[in-house]
């Protein structure tokens, strides 16, 4: 039991990181039905910004997270402006062209980081002394508390924002029917940009948290994390904000349980095996709305 609880704690910490990235995927998808493949790279840039701030400016934890979030917000806006907006404007650009453009942006960003930093893995400097607390037989480290805490805070903040602000209402309207929302006076371009900015900020925060937790930052870290987070978003039902959180936590838990069962060689396959199984039973994801296609 204690062992199980312990793995639950580890899984929650890992799952929180996936959930934070998955939120970005799901929000963008909910509004413009685009898989933003460059998201994993934005997460990676977040981790590097945090690292840079700590190494050169001796920033503390909070400054590192806020700095990374600010930088990735700008980066997300630039990517949207350069790689996606022109395609949205062009009449004969299908969704696949947008996907290829996103992939181009992803390749560009990861190569850029290899050029800036080199392909090697860098450890994250210790920001504070890690300690372990024992809680009902399971030990939880300060790092894990930090990750779960910061993630929960950001998720609650996002939920309140989407639910109770005017901008949030406009975003929800846009995801229900973009044309109708535009007719009601919603500035769609601005709302899409805000969505990208929010998602990128969350990915940036996730990057710093992951850098601290795994004590490793490298230019290709975004690929696998991005794929798993995307799987998490689809698992929960893409377009659904609670779904992304549930999916992220589930995938994190499944991965940790797999490692605990001495199957760590197979861990990268777990997320996707679960995803495929769920999709076979419930094709629109756990919390997703099923769309009935009308003629």
């Amino acid at each position, binding site marked *: 039991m204690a062992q199980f609880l312990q793995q639950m704690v580890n899984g929650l910490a890992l799952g929180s990181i996936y959930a934070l990235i998955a939120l970005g995927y799901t929000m963008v*998808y909910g509004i413009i039905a685009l898989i933003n493949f460059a998201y994993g790279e934005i997460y990676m840039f977040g981790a590097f910004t945090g690292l840079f701030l700590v190494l050169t400016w001796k920033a503390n934890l909070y400054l590192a997270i806020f700095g990374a979030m600010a930088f990735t917000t700008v980066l997300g806006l630039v990517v949207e402006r350069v790689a996606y907006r022109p*395609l949205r404007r062009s009449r004969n650009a299908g969704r696949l062209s947008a996907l290829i453009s996103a992939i181009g942006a992803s390749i560009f960003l990861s190569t850029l980081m290899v050029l800036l930093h080199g392909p090697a893995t860098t450890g994250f400097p210790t920001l504070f002394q890690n300690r372990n607390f024992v809680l009902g037989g399971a030990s939880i480290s300060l790092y894990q508390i930090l990750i779960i805490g910061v993630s929960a805070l950001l998720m609650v903040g996002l939920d309140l924002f989407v639910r109770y602000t005017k901008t949030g209402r406009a975003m929800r309207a846009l995801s229900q029917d973009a044309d109708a929302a535009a007719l009601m006076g919603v500035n769609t371009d601005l709302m899409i940009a805000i969505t990208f900015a929010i998602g990128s900020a969350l990915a940036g925060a996730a990057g710093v948290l992951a850098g601290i937790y795994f004590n490793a930052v490298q230019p290709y870290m975004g690929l696998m994390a991005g794929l798993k987070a*995307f799987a998490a978003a689809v698992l929960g039902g893409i377009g659904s904000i609670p779904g992304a959180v549930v999916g992220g936590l589930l995938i994190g838990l499944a991965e940790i349980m797999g490692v605990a069962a001495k199957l760590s060689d197979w861990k990268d396959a777990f997320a996707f095996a679960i995803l495929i199984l769920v999709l*076979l039973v419930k094709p629109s994801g756990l919390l997703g709305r099923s769309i009935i296609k009308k*003629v």
Partner: protein
Amino acid sequence: MSTVDNSVSGAVPGAPAPRRQPAWLKLWPVQALLFLALLVAVWAVTEALNLVIPAYQGQILLFTGINVIITLGLNLITGVTGQLSLGHAAFMAIGAYAAAICTVSLHLPFALALLLGGLVAALFGVVLGFPTLRLSGDYLAIATLGFAEIVRVVNTNLKITNGAIGYYGIQKRVDLPLVAMLAVAAVAAMAWLENSRNGRAMRSVREDEIAATASGVNTTFYKIQAFAVGAFFAGVGGGLYAHTTTFIQPTDFGFLKSVEQLSMVVLGGMGSIAGTVLGTIVLTAAPELLRFMSNYRMLVYGATLIVLMIFRPGGLLGGVDLRDAVRRALMLGRSRTVRTSVGGDGQ
């Protein structure tokens, strides 16, 4: 986009144009003979080319040919049938490993090994085709992506594939004439398939699944068929790849490989054979041509993808009918071809 010639207004867009050919050209023995003559010509030309060009350029041509075979399979699944696949490299991996095991462990002849590699991949294509019955669009895309990741992890952990170390000791059995002939045969087979009843059914699935079902097209059957045939092509290509490099490892067939193959199809023009071939040639040659930039080449590659999609979202040959273009260039007068829109995926 879809401009219909006055002469044939009312014809179904996408239907093959009525061609004005002499009747004797339509007899199958004549066509078979012409095809054989073409293969012999390709063999002679590439055999001569092999003597003239340096080894490095020959190698690039070789990989271009292999990639053409593989991306034609993806074009059938994604371009013609409209089922977005992000895991095409998995079929290539299955074919590569199956063919390699056939020649190295089972001592089977190379030709049989290639065929078996293709068939095993096709079997997995059928297995993966089944989820498409329930999934569509991006859900399908992520399922194929997941399938590819699972294949990679399985290949990394199985004994028979020699795990992460990679499978080595494969004999080099592939040369340029062989690949060129197979690539030409693949193009011919795809052109034949796409103009057949089955090809039209597949295209109807892409254009409007509900309308296709209502018209009596068994969409399930044709989706699975597209996956099986597409996977077969990838499997054969994988077998060729394994017997070219003589060493394969699971990371050769990762997500980035699938993405690269999809970029080739989309860049050239979805659903167009000529476009797929062109996109494959450009994207296989581009990293080599950009090699002088050393570290910056992938940066340029990524930026090029974005710029191309902004200025030609339908792909290089998207919406261009090659026969039409050639006729116009030769000033042979107006053809009776109906142009269809292939910009994006038509949604």
